[in-house]
């Protein structure tokens, strides 16, 4: 199913997103990679202030390429980074911040999949490397936090986006995962591939 979503998105609506659905989203999202995950979780645990309204804001695994032009930030390219690097933090992160949409590439692990079910959240895949296309969907940089401390890719960027997508729901809040399904197919294909190699393959 293809959907156009305006943010913020209600929890019951997110429960309705199913693996394989394609979304385009409009509204405000934030970026966080490894260092930002670590920092945000630490701040929350130490009961320090989070300087933006993080609850239910889609989390984008992205280290954008940004340029300052006439004192305004301009996103040049903003494709997703490998989500699996955030796996050690993600379960705790989405529980702490009530995150309902995670956007990244490559998928996440079992712990996150379990948390998606608990929190009522989804993991959406965006085409890796499609940085210029993603940047076109960014209408403005709302703010940036911890830029000096973390550097450009690792800083937290708050972005307004317009019809950002296609985002493919790869892991939903019902335990469905496109990656699990694919693993089964690939494993079966691997048996055939190994047989070909063992018998001297395709010669």
């Amino acid at each position: 199913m293809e959907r156009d979503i305006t943010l913020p998105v209600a929890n019951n609506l997110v429960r309705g997103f199913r693996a394989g659905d394609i979304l385009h989203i409009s509204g405000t999202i934030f970026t966080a990679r490894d260092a930002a995950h670590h920092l945000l979780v630490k701040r929350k645990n130490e009961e320090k202030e989070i300087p933006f309204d993080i609850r239910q804001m889609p989390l984008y695994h992205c280290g954008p390429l940004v340029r300052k032009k006439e004192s305004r930030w301009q996103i040049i390219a903003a494709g997703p980074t490998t989500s699996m690097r955030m796996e050690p933090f993600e379960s705790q992160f989405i529980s702490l911040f009530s995150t309902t949409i995670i956007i990244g590439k490559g998928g996440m692990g079992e712990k996150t999949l379990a948390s998606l079910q608990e929190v009522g959240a989804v993991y959406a895949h965006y085409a890796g490397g499609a940085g210029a296309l993603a940047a076109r969907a960014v209408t403005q940089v709302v703010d940036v936090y911890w830029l000096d401390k973390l550097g450009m890719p690792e800083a937290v960027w708050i972005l307004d986006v317009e019809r950002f997508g296609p985002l493919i729901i790869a892991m939903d809040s019902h335990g469905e995962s496109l990656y699990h399904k694919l693993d089964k197919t690939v494993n079966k294909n691997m048996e055939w591939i190994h047989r070909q190699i063992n018998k001297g393959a395709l010669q």
Partner: protein
Amino acid sequence: MKLKKALLSAIRTAATILPRDVVITLEEAIQKEDSKLARAQLAAILENIKIARTDSIPLCQDTGIQTFFIQAGTRSPYLELLNPVIAQAVIEATATVPLRPNTVHPFTDKNSGDNLGRGMPVIDYELTESDKIIITLLPKGGGSENCCALKMLTPSAGISAIKRAIVDHVIACKGAPCPPTIVGVGIGGGADVAMKLAKRAILRKIKISHPEQPVAKLEKELLELINRSGVGPMGLGGNTTSLAVHIEYAFRHPASLPLGIVLQCWASRRAQIQINKDGSIKVS
């Protein structure tokens, strides 16, 4: 200075314009996909390539580690210029293209801000008996670099062990290196040589096979096997997991069989500069 200008132009070209052979192969790939998700991935990739080219902006926010492979003609009068001018060009390109500052101290995580730092940019010299210098620029992204591997195989296991190690590795990486990938393979030499051969192998244009027929045949066979896995574009399923397999080899120690595997994402960016003896420079 002319050389710095040429380097800046090459860095911008590599970051913003995907080489023709890669684009054509991606366009062919979309025709081979039946699944909606695979086609959606490739369509987004192709649209992205178009936007980057038209607007002259980097294809991918990960503008990579700037890696320069230099075939340095020993009779060229310009050799001593190369290191400092390349460093200067990288600093300027970081600000003007722009490139994402991607070099961080390995212990403190401090970002240098200008893509320089100890050992950066990466410059690899190969001496040639010539009066020309050929610089091939490879901006290498982190996602695909994390999927590189060195395997020290048992020589007696033979060619099928090599095939299996390559296919198993590429498929185990699933969507992580941003498939469809280009697979660079280096066999023999020693641990370091195998990795270097594998990295040089991804510089070769797609559809140009290894000049030796048995190696070319192996490249074709491995590509076919990898694409039968079903991993597909971005690891969401489909018929195109890799666009090419390129193999380079060197002789080996009888007791060792080093196998280097380098994965390159679909954004297989590269550019080339040729510096002639008379000082004329060509960027391509």
